[in-house]
């Protein structure tokens, strides 16, 4: 059972959500799953499908010099959300690779809140969205750097590809930095498939749907490039490939 009050549009991290869908599942929603990554260890979490409710929430503490990797693929839900709060200890690392594939009027989002609590922590977040029809794909990424968290290095790269005019991409970084020796890099782009490249591929004999598929697979692959287990990476890429085919 979920004891928290239902979010509203005024809650910063729910501003692009489909709140009607949220309301339907809210009461029965599981609480955020708590994960603890002990010092010097490396844990990985891969999400290749969303639950029935569409919503997954994690609360992760990464101890000194440990590392946590989350790779997730969001698709196949009218409303879907992966939400993760991470606290990073001294020298700890958080890696996020997220892919969003949406069509119709689907609303899919990734919401992160990364707290660099101690010095020397690093985080790297990569999100790639392919959005068809009137769908919405959002990334809200909050990065907090505490006063003592010197030499923090936090990066976000968010790219969205709109396949149709009616699709919407949101990328909202939010930085709260209280230390002075900090590197924070954020990049966000929204684009369409490169027509020049599509024509080039056609002159080599590739039908439009094959050319498009190759380019979109390559685009999405950025999100999974950090998966260190080849079989796991290929499995996730395969699911994404099927998902891309279903966008049309």
């Amino acid at each position: 059972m979920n004891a928290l009050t239902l979010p509203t549009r005024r809650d910063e991290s729910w501003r692009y959500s489909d709140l009607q869908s949220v309301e339907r599942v809210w009461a029965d929603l599981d609480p955020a799953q708590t994960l603890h990554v002990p010092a010097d260890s490396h844990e990985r979490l891969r999400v290749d499908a969303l639950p029935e409710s569409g919503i997954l929430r994690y609360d992760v503490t990464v101890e000194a010099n440990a590392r946590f990797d989350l790779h997730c693929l969001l698709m196949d839900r009218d409303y879907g959300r992966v939400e993760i709060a991470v606290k990073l200890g001294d020298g700890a690392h958080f890696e996020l690779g997220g892919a969003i594939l949406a069509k119709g009027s689907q609303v899919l989002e990734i919401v992160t809140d990364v707290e660099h609590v101690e010095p020397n922590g690093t985080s790297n977040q990569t999100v790639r969205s392919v959005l068809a029809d009137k769908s919405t794909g959002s990334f809200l990424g909050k990065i907090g750097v505490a006063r003592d968290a010197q030499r923090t290095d936090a990066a976000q790269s968010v790219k969205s590809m709109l396949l149709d005019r009616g699709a919407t991409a949101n990328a909202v970084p939010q930085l709260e930095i209280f230390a002075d020796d900090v590197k924070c890099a954020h990049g966000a782009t929204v684009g369409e498939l490169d027509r020049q490249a599509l024509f080039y591929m056609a002159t080599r004999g590739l039908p439009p749907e094959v050319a498009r598929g190759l380019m979109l697979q390559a685009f999405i692959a950025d999100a999974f490039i950090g998966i260190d287990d080849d079989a796991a990476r290929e499995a996730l890429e395969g699911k994404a490939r099927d998902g891309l085919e279903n966008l049309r």
Partner: protein
Amino acid sequence: MLNIENLHASIGDTKILKGLSLQINAGEIHAIMGPNGAGKSTLGYVLGGRPGYEATEGSASFDGQDLLDMDPHARAAAGLFLGFQYPVEIPGVSNVQFLREAVNAQRTARGEATLSGGEFLKAAREKAALLKMDMDMMKRAVNVGFSGGEKKRNEMVQMGLIDPKLAILDETDSGLDIDALRTVGAGINTIMRKPDKAVLLITHYQRLLELVEPDFVHVLANGRIVKTGGPELALQLENEGYEAIAEAA
């Protein structure tokens, strides 16, 4: 093989080709030269079917089929290859993957059996060696981070693997160093100089034409072919420039 009659073409509202006629038969090598902005690349793009390049009048047939009525990928499957003046980068898609998909898409369209991974790699190794291109480059993303000359050489590796009937090569010689030019010239001869194939070379330089000797040389100016001759016309152009010849025509 290729029969272009009175072709007019526009990009948006701008008329670029204004009544161009050209016939290329199997076994022939043609060269088109002409001043910057004359419409040489436009001719290649119109024949390749680039969106936005519209043929407004005239016709172009390829082996008896109406070329202008076919989709770009169908033109390729029918045997037309376009070597780009500025080859396009495709981030994240490797040369090997791109070309295997392309070759097999063409074979499927023609009703031929597709190549297995092994068969394809063997052919790729052979063509890369012919063009002196490192196999490591074949594994890299298409043209991404390639130098100007490497991109042109890659175009020729692609041509070798695709094995077209007609190749339109738009300034494939520009940007090549002296040795690379020789390699590419020899590559064009090996791949394309056959009785059932033909080549249309678009170039500004006599040097390529010494390596790949054309049967015909055309001058394209102002959207039309204004003069046609043999290899000696290229030499004359080099000595006298376009202006004198275009005006005399």
